[in-house]
């Protein structure tokens, strides 16, 4: 009721203001009158004018007006960390997959789930139906002060806390009241708080998503350019009832639909390039011809990790565990300050301005899941494989980041493993550096069989490159692909002028040309010689 009254007052005031503004001539208009983008000033809500001691308390307050928000969130991938691929029927999502970064969430929830949009997901007994456990602030914070430190199972810390207990390190408490009063739509910073830091740090995982996109210039991203279009993530990843469009588990590899008309009900993905630019975006017809086989990203994202932040390209877990000369866990860094070796994680390689690799991709991504058999051999194991071929009629040539490394697996059961890395207990790898114990705990938590042996296997994972779209002047030029040894040197199934030729035609062709030259030359010489005789 109180909120209702307040709203009524706010509305009445707003209407009065509009009336006055219309009635009074422009001269009298106050110079600093700023048009508010939001119709609600959250600092005026009484329910938010209280000292919150926990995240769920804030959510309760949010839900007192936004009554259906938690129900919407409960249906999202962001909440469930589970995605059933409609094509492959594979059960994916962070909850289930094993990757080749920190490998898996299971048994590490307290650490990993600081990026879950919920509160308190600490183990496999988490109740996904509790509404006040939805974390509104993770996505709607506008102060930049909202933090969910690793180790707290996705809970913000409101009072200064020693963590880990007995370590003497203090995690500072944050003021949730201030944050709650300043909420707003998602921003590049709120999405980026997790998505820029995937894989355990800035730029580590994706390569096309890192903190440089928080306020990018035009050359880094033509759409998010702060001085230009200034898109937020949600401008493209248009949400509907909190369902965020666009998925890397099931990407839209080939969008043949026309551009979305405003207001038109559409079932196609609004986050594709074509959803705005349509099917023939170039002035030159010859460039439009390329859209039959090439994803827009292939030419328009010439390199990734171009914002000054490198991305991880290689992670070798097999070298983890080596302590420094002092017997302590060590971190070695390169001249730029990036980790090249960590006792708890192994060896890393970083790279900047990386040229993507290119593959035929039809939108189907096949994962190697926990129970799947893998074989240690010459070829590395695919954590996920982008499927596609030049002939299936559905594939386009896509740029990807190939992330390679070596990771722990069970050499007897021949499966990827779940490893208990983070935790303040005896089996956590990051505490005791014992692979067998760590994997045993992880596999027990995942209810998966474990032989007791740990070996290392080379793996790769594929990441679609979609962001860091360059201005058109900086897109790839013809020669980048139309040349021998160009970007698409490894792409089969297309005839690429200047890269390809028919060897037989070329050989015979030049032979005929050469013989003709030789013939006319000989004929001419003979004529000159015989003419002199006469």
């Amino acid at each position: 009721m109180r909120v209702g009254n307040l709203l009524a007052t706010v509305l009445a005031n707003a209407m009065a203001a509009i009336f006055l503004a219309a009635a009074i001539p422009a001269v009298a208009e106050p110079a600093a009158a700023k048009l508010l983008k939001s119709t609600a000033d959250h600092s005026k809500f009484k329910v938010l004018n209280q000292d919150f001691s926990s995240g769920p308390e804030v959510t309760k307050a949010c839900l007192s007006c936004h009554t259906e928000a938690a129900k919407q969130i409960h249906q999202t991938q962001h909440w469930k960390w589970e995605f059933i691929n409609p094509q492959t029927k594979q059960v994916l999502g962070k909850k289930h997959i094993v990757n080749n970064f920190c490998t898996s969430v299971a048994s590490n929830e307290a650490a990993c789930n600081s990026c879950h949009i919920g509160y308190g997901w600490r183990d496999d007994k988490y109740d996904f139906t509790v509404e006040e456990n939805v974390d509104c602030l993770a996505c709607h914070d506008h102060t930049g002060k909202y933090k969910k430190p690793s180790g707290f199972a996705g809970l913000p810390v409101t009072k200064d806390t020693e963590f880990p207990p007995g370590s003497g390190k203090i995690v500072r408490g944050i003021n949730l009241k201030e944050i709650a009063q300043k909420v707003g739509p998602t921003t590049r910073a709120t999405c980026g708080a997790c998505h820029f830091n995937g894989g355990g740090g800035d730029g580590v995982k994706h390569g096309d998503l890192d903190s440089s996109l928080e306020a990018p210039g035009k050359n880094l991203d033509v759409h998010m350019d702060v001085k230009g279009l200034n898109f937020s993530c949600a401008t493209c990843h248009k949400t509907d009832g909190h369902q965020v469009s666009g998925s890397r588990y099931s990407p839209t590899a080939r969008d043949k639909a026309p551009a979305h008309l405003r207001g038109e009900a559409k079932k196609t993905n609004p986050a594709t390039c074509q959803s705005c630019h349509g099917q023939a975006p170039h002035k030159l017809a010859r460039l439009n011809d390329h859209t039959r086989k090439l994803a827009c990203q292939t030419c328009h994202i010439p390199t990734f990790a171009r914002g000054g932040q490198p991305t991880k390209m290689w992670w070798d877990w097999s070298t983890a565990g080596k302590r420094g000369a002092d017997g302590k866990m060590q971190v070695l860094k390169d001249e730029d300050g990036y980790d090249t070796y960590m006792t708890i994680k192994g060896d890393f390689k970083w790279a900047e301005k990386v040229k993507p690799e290119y593959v035929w991709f039809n939108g189907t991504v096949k994962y190697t899941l926990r129970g799947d058999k893998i074989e240690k051999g010459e070829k590395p194991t695919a954590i996920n494989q982008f499927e596609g071929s030049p002939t299936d009629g559905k594939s386009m040539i896509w740029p990807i980041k190939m992330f390679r490394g070596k990771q722990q697996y069970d050499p007897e059961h021949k499966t990827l493993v779940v490893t208990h890395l983070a935790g303040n207990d005896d089996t956590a790898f990051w505490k005791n550096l014992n692979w067998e114990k760590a994997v045993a705990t992880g596999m027990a938590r995942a209810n998966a069989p474990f032989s007791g042996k740990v070996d290392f296997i080379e793996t790769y994972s594929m990441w679609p490159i979609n962001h860091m779209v360059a201005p058109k002047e900086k897109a790839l030029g013809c020669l980048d692909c139309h040349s021998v040894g160009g970007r698409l040197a490894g792409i089969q199934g297309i005839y690429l002028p200047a890269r390809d030729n028919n060897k037989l035609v070329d050989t015979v062709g030049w032979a005929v040309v050469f013989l003709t030259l030789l013939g006319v030359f000989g004929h001419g010489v003979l004529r000159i010689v015989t003419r002199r005789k006469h």
Partner: protein
Amino acid sequence: MAERIYVFKRFERFWHWSQAGLIMFLMLTAFDIHGTYAIFGFEKAVNYHTIAAWSLVGLWVFAIFWHLTTGEWRQYIPTTEKVVAMAQYYLFGIFRNAPHPFRLTQLRKHNPLQRLAYLVVLLFISPLIWISGWLYLFYADWAAWGLPNLQLEWVATAHTLGAFMMLAFLIAHVYLTTAGHTPLAHIKAMITGWEEVD
């Protein structure tokens, strides 16, 4: 002594030389696109090649019209008469200063071997280049034209094959211009229109 015959009319000479220039420029850009060398670079070479190709299309529209309306197309009707004699002349007679077996007139300005050669160019090499080139230009429309299974590789290979044949023709053609009664006689005729005959 030498008699002068007016064999190449003004339009014909214009057509011949602009076509020659365009074809040589097309060759130059073609092998750039093919990746044989990089004079203009791929992008410019493609643009120039396309412009030159369309120019040649335009020129041909006029040339076909001219040939049909003037009846000059008959000059390309092949004949078996004196073909062997011509071949023998190029193979032997020319070295012995033997008389040219063919005497050209306004109605028969190409010798029998020329007629055959031009006919091969007109009926085989040109269509090969034209059709494949046309398809190349309209790559995006193949499906709309009912050719969804056409492969760029076939089109490109056919186009390249045509280019090699045209290049070989060009070499022989340019050389044989020197086979007149003086080395520059034929060239002069193609410039002035007047051919000197014995």
